[in-house]
């Protein structure tokens, strides 16, 4: 059995995933990079190898194509591994208002896709006896806001699912970390207005690696978002509904 850590990254071409893969590579770890844009992920894998990854394999993975998840997990190598779930999809609420089908797509990716693959990964990881799962959720799941509530509701569902999954697997050697990033400087948010205290994907990736090592349950990133969200959650609904957040 190999001593090097192996990380499976789902949604490997997202900004945080890229930074995360680079960190694992610089520490000499192994990587399985999975996602849809294979040509782009090949470039990320090449970069990881040159920077020190002993192995960086590329796998096709589509969160929406749930029928494929069973086979995807079955084909993973037989050894302990960790998971970073970094795929996600967001669209401006105005676009969703024009096209309600988009709402279902957002839920299919962020909630159904995540549940589908995690439900298969977690038992597989217990077979190997250990492992850490880090899921990139969002502060948007803490409270539904007019500007982002479809995405927020999918992440809220995901957060509740992760609570149950965590409790189920706590005794079986698999830790599950829910990461709730605030504003991040990613391709998903580039050019969006109204953001403040924006964090870099690199700093988030470092934090994710730290959270996994410590087996954290729920972590806000940067940490001050815990306070911001505590305040936002404390506002009574009859007042909150009049705020345009």
């Amino acid at each position: 059995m190999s001593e090097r850590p192996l990380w499976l990254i789902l949604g490997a071409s997202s900004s945080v995933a890229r930074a995360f893969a680079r960190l694992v590579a610089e520490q000499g770890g192994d990587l399985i990079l999975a996602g849809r844009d294979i040509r782009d992920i090949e470039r990320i894998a090449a970069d990881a190898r040159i920077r020190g990854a002993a192995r960086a394999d590329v796998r096709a993975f589509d969160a929406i194509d749930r029928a494929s998840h069973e086979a995807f997990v079955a084909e993973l190598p037989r050894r302990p591994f960790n998971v970073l779930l970094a795929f996600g999809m967001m669209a401006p609420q105005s676009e969703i208002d024009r096209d309600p089908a988009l709402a279902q797509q957002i839920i299919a990716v962020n909630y159904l896709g995540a549940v589908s693959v995690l439900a298969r990964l977690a038992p597989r990881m217990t077979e190997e006896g250990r492992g850490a799962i880090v899921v990139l959720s969002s502060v948007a799941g803490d409270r539904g806001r007019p500007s982002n509530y479809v995405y927020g509701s999918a992440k809220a569902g995901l957060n509740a699912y992760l609570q149950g999954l965590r409790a189920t697997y706590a005794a079986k050697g698999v830790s599950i970390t829910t990461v709730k990033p605030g504003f991040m400087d990613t391709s998903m948010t580039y050019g969006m207005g109204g953001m403040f205290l924006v964090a870099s994907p690199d700093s988030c990736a470092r934090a994710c690696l730290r959270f996994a090592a410590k087996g954290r349950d729920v972590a806000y990133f940067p940490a001050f978002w815990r306070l911001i969200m505590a305040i936002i959650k404390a506002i009574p609904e009859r007042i909150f509904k009049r705020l345009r957040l």
Partner: protein
Amino acid sequence: MADANLNPGWRHDSFTGWGRVLRGEMDAARPERIADLAKALQAVDRRGVIVHAGGRSYGDAALNSGGQAILTSRFDRLLDFDPASGLLVAEAGVTFDDLRRLFLPRGFLAPVTPGTAFATLGGAVAHDVHGKNQDRAGNFGRHLAWLDLMLPSGEIRRLMPDDPLFRATVAGLGLTGVVIAVALKMMAVPSRFVALHERRVRNLDEFLDALEEVRRTAAYSVGWIDALAQGSSLGRGIVESADPAPPVEGEHYREARARRVAFDFPAIALNPLSISLFNAQHWRGVPARGRERRVPYDRFLYPLDAIKGWNRLYGRRGFHQFQCLLPEANSRKALRSILETCVGSRAASFLGVLKTMGQQGTGLLSFGGRGHTLALDFPARPGVGDLLVRLERMVLDHGGCIYAAKDSRMSAEGFAAMYPNLPQFRAILAEIDPGQRMMSDLARRLAIREAP
């Protein structure tokens, strides 16, 4: 997921050249994938687009006021490296700092590097940059096996050095499209250090004689010139020459801690008096008999990178940079009259560099050839514009040329006279970019796209 980015976001922002004299408001996109880069190019409107990468060109080469820009900072992946041949394939947003950090420990260095490691490989192509080894190694473009270019149409083409479009893209000021990847022949080095020799020279004649000597004996050579010294000291300075140093058992390399200029200096800080005092002290810093030292490559190649944001030393108004190449036959006379003009104006600053060049560049608009190159900083003050106009005239009269990557003031007529391949370059642009999708403030100022 890509679906989130049907239209990559554009952000309205204000940008400056490194000299901070020229500014521009642009809508910038920052794609992370090649597919998104193509979409960004499709979304360009009539004011055109230019790549803004490391932001280290001094003037307006990476500005497109009122138009669009593409930031390539997220195209920073290494794609292939063969330790046997040294061939590195990397995306264009990779910086020389990335290369230094990753490859010096493995015994490789970029064969040609500009004076700052924060420039990107794409920028190095766009300006066909040169370094302290130009005399022997030539410019950056010469060390490329090939490059991948996304044409303004969105088509991706791999260009070999014999391709006319390669010769237009190298030193093409970003106007032929967006460089996606380069295949660079890295150079093997025996250690992380150079053996550096420094000596004082008391005047211009001594300076040129010393440069002449070291260009024959050393791999790297560069001279710091005190552009405020006058009379019998006109052209005094320090000549540095360096060669790769053999490894020394047990020698430890430590990464230097960078300091940062956290605020704009008041304009008064750099005045002729303070600069002359600094220069005199710096000159005496090297003993009269000269000295030998082992210095890490980074400190020799990128001395100013040790101070992050050093351009803020010049205050809010910024500075102009001027770099010219004077052909060898005229250079002694030309340098003397240029230095006398600068001394007379009392406008120059402490960053004067004089060195030799020995090779032509590979690009149609490359800055290269055999002769002497002089680079000077001028803090932005009233009168500097006139001085730069006079300097352009003098460079033209001596058959020299001015480096576009550093320029902020040259005239379109002057540029056309200095770069005789301009009509050929124009013809290629007309062919590959008839809609003038690629555009910059520099291209407009120097009328690069318009035939007269």
